């Protein structure tokens, strides 16, 4: 299982801030998330960046036991 972190609007769409999901790479973890959280989450995910730990990841990036995958929707950092 890999820890998935859902931030901002992604958290809101999923209804949870984190989840542990199966998958050997980032793409498989995300597919499991869409299956669990549904269409609204899928729409947010489609517009989001995905990081593996603190760096941008691709769907192919392999994930291990202590890795975290984060779903980062578009940002509105400031004023």
């Amino acid at each position, binding site marked *: 299982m890999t820890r998935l972190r859902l931030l*901002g*609007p992604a958290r809101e769409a999923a209804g949870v801030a984190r989840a542990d999901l199966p998958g050997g790479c980032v793409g498989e973890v995300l597919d499991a998330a869409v299956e669990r959280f549904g269409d609204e989450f899928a729409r947010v995910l489609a517009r989001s960046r995905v990081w593996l730990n*603190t760096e941008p990841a691709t769907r192919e990036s392999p994930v291990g036991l202590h890795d975290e995958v*984060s779903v980062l*929707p578009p*940002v*509105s*950092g*400031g004023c």
Partner: protein
Amino acid sequence: MSDVQVPTGRDWVALAEEPLVPEVLSAWAIRPDCGAVVTFSGTARRSSTFEHEIIALEYETSTDLALSRLTQLVAIARSRWSDLGAVGIHHRVGRVEVTESAVVVVVSAPHRDAAFLAARFCIDSVKRAVPMWKREFWAGGSAWSEQCEDLVDLDQL
């Protein structure tokens, strides 16, 4: 600010649940070999350009992801302006009332050109490349800010 320690080095990035105090960061940035200190404070403003009058903001992030990015931004600034003195970026998390600082950037440098440019780079980069989500509050409701852009990677800055 009570939960952060003033660093002894030249970099200071922090996320704060308590009100930011820009003058703490500005005073920290003064260096005997620097003739310029530029401080940017991004304050929550009352805005009525949309349907509502904004009365407060709320910032949400992941502390480790945001701090990692802030640290990287400071390193990029230093690589672009090699003579910077102090570089500090503090971002508030949680609810921020109108006129309170949401983010403060301070840069000191021997001369003002680098201080202005690096401060501008830092705040622009904070808004583009740091995972941070803003919720706008009005009387009786709230929503995620609609002025959103895809988070950019560091090599796009």
